[in-house]
């Protein structure tokens, strides 16, 4: 692979962000790390990414809102959710329902 795959990482916990970024970089990815949803959307508009890793609990705008906004523009880029909650039931359902609607 001549060009590194690019990942957008959104996580508000500093230490977790550092550790995840370090691991992904050691795996050979180019990581752009941001700490809140608004910045994430701004960066997403400016650059191209191969994968987005999103935390659910974010300041000001939660991960689902970020995901929805991204999906309105781009239906292809894979989005991965990071969450501390094991019981993901309701928001996950909500997300699926919304994403199905967004996909059409």
């Amino acid at each position, binding site marked *: 692979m001549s060009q590194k795959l690019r990942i957008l990482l959104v996580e508000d*916990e*500093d*230490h*977790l962000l*550092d*550790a*995840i970024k*370090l*691991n992904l970089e*050691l795996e050979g990815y180019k990581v752009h790390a941001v700490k809140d949803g608004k910045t994430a959307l701004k960066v997403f508009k400016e650059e191209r990414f191969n994968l987005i890793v999103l935390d*659910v*609990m*974010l*300041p*000001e*705008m*939660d991960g689902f809102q970020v995901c929805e906004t991204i999906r309105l523009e781009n239906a292809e880029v894979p989005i991965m959710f990071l969450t*501390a*909650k094991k019981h993901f039931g309701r928001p996950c359902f909500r997300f699926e329902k919304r994403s199905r609607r967004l996909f059409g």
Partner: protein
Amino acid sequence: MKKSIIIFYALLLYALIQLISWGTLVVRLQPSRMTMIMGEGSVFLFLLCIGGYFLHQSLKREDKLREQQQNFLMSITHELKSPLAAIKLSIQTIVKRDLDKARQVSLLNNSLKDIERLDDLVENMLLATKIENRSYSFPKEAFNFSELVAKITDRLQVHSCGCEQIINAKIQPNLQLVGDKFALSSVVTNLIENAVKYSNPCDEINVHLNEVDGHIHLSVLDKGPGISDAEKMLIFDKFYRVGNENVRKAKGTGLGLFIVKEVLQYHDADITVKDNLPQGSIFEVTFS
């Protein structure tokens, strides 16, 4: 919850309709006893209304409590799991990868800070529980309050330096206080930590400690978003937190100000919240 409220109101309505229909029936049969029936009916109606009102109040309170508990559960998941996840990932990274010394040290330092955060959280939770159960005895002793405030301000200054917040402290030296040193240090820490948490980076926070007419005053002034008048009364409730849990800007559990209120009550001290101008809040503690 919704179901029980509907059943409760349906029962209330049913009782009311029954009362009126039986009343009219009896009046029709014995028109001479009209006054007695009306009198008894209105007493019954009055009692029913009072009962209904109190039940309604307690149902509402229950609902609020449940919501706060839910909030607490959400924030506690975040507060406990995030540092744990960070510690786990950091240590796994060190074990798995061949890192240079500097990187290892930085990961370990991060983990240590996370462990301190967890320690603080557990301490707060234990203190709150003990205060609630009345099992905390508040051992009283005379100590130098100025020194305590200065020490806490210094410690938090170091912690917040990453965000470039500046804590300005104006402390009148050698103010003595009789009280529980541990609980009061938790009060001061919580107040200053809140100011740091809810301020923007580079904002300054002012901490004033002085004595006026024999009363010790401690005020913490921040330039954060401030607290709306409606919420000023609520922030001291257990588990209450400003705003929605999923898009929370600041971290926390909703226990801090509950501890502050309870401890200060025990020390016969007052706390007031005011608006800081042009923006922000002022927390003012007055010891009697």
